[in-house]
């Protein structure tokens, strides 16, 4: 085991590095797309149901199927890492668009009414009041999207791009346990580190949620 790690350090690190960007870049893309989409569903309520339904459908497509379908729709090679990034971005978007919409809808009420009544213009109200108030719920969605992406990236190993997933396939091919264990441990660790990272950022961004009641 130790020998395996020592002998394959460079390989393992590059798999880990690839795993990190393959899983986190889609989260970033998902956030960037989900924020305006979520906002629009609040602004134009009739959009809410279609967006939620679309998200539900997208989210229920098996990842492997998505890896095969995407190259048929946009010009990326099936074996290209970009294929994985696009597929996972779709998942992240599906999950986050609904989270953003629900979070923004949940903060509508007396407080946002009061904000408007005090003379906030819509955009400033969105950034100054509604988004900050919606942050705790949105951050919870972000945690789910991040952790699920980290586990989904491994599936990409089946088509040959999978970050730590490559360790699994290698271990299976060689009937050798060490790379499999290293792969599992590292991906669990990665998920835990990212999750705690988000929690820390959230604590820093939302000090008021810990300002205990009364």
């Amino acid at each position, binding site marked *: 085991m130790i020998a395996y790690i020592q002998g394959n350090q460079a390989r393992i690190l590059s798999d880990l590095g690839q795993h990190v960007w393959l899983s986190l870049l889609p989260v970033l893309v998902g956030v960037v797309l989900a924020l305006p989409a979520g906002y629009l569903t609040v602004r134009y309520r009739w959009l809410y149901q279609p967006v939620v339904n679309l998200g539900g459908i997208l989210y229920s497509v098996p990842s492997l199927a998505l890896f095969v379908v995407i190259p048929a729709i946009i010009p990326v090679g099936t074996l290209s890492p970009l294929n994985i990034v696009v597929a996972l971005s779709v998942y992240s978007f599906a999950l986050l668009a609904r989270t953003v919409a629900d979070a923004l809808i949940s903060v509508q009420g*007396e*407080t946002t*009414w009061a904000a408007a*009544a*005090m*003379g*906030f213009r819509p955009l400033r109200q969105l950034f100054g009041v509604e988004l900050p108030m919606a942050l705790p719920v949105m951050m919870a969605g972000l945690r789910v999207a991040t952790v699920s992406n980290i586990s989904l990236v491994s599936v990409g190993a089946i088509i040959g791009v999978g970050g730590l997933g490559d360790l699994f396939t290698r271990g299976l091919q060689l009937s050798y346990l060490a790379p499999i264990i290293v792969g599992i441990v590292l991906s669990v660790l990665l998920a835990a580190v990212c999750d705690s990272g988000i929690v820390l950022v959230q604590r820093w961004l939302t000090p*008021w949620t810990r*300002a205990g009641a*009364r």
Partner: protein
Amino acid sequence: MITFDAVTKAFPGGNVAVDNLSLELPTGQITVFVGPSGCGKTTSLRMINRTIEPTSGTISIDGEDVTSQDAALLRRRIGYVIQHAGLFPHRTVADNIATVPLLNGVNKAQAREQARELLTRVGLDESLASRYPAQLSGGQQQRVGVARALAADPPVMLMDEPFSAVDPIVRDGLQREFLRLQSELGKTIAFVTHDIDEAIKLGDRVAIFREGGHLAQVGSPQDLLDDPADEFVADFVGRDRGFRALSFITAEKLEVEQVSAYVDRARGASLVLDDTGRPTGWSVDGQEVLRALPGTFTTRDALRLVTDLAITSPAGAAVRVDEAGVADGVVAHEAIARHLTALRRETER
């Protein structure tokens, strides 16, 4: 002056919330909108700052039609206070108060400094400035709500049931302080409540609304009590309106007995004073056990309070104090009753 001219609001679906309302709210005075739930008070209030637009008719402030003004700028010149304060949970108390100045481009340091001053103004400690709203009691949040509305020194204030969600004792304190503030500030205030007592206590003018968004009667509290326009108003101001009228007469001319007559009495309730002469409670039948004082009054308080105090006191008497809080007289409820009878004879003559 705020003027409603034939204002009607019909919501989609045909629900007429306000029906042909014409009303004037004089500058520098408190006009209270009162009436049962659902009679259009909130809707009327919200049309003033254009958070609801009227279906027909016009609302103007000092002769200028509100719909001719930019809504956001208009709103920054109109303070707004609501029932649960509606404070921003993610902003500190100071930043909540500084909201409108910040919107107007005042720099942060200056706005926060001013927010601290406002905290003291509404009777809160400056140390609360860096707290979050969730760390305050309901009454404190309501005061912060008032401070926030006052921050940009708007000439007009809209207050929608601002004191309804706090318990009666806290509410009483908030109301008194509100009146004190208003006597210093002289804002033009539209105040919504469903509580006729509050309306009479706070209003320079009271507009009574009835079901369907109709104005039933408008006038001074005294007018409404003395001369209700119809059955509905008479009913709404209540059968005990004689008692309510006591809210307008101060205890200035009420004769009191010497405090010493109530101290160290062998039988019945006896008044206990501390070293400085401030009343601390009643002891009953010479026992040590103290019964709390329901409160005290000064010559500036209304007879209604004095009557309340006398009725709820174990001695059947209310204690008067001077500016320093030192007991300077006691009055039994029989004496209050005699005083009232004398007053009535006087007005009938």
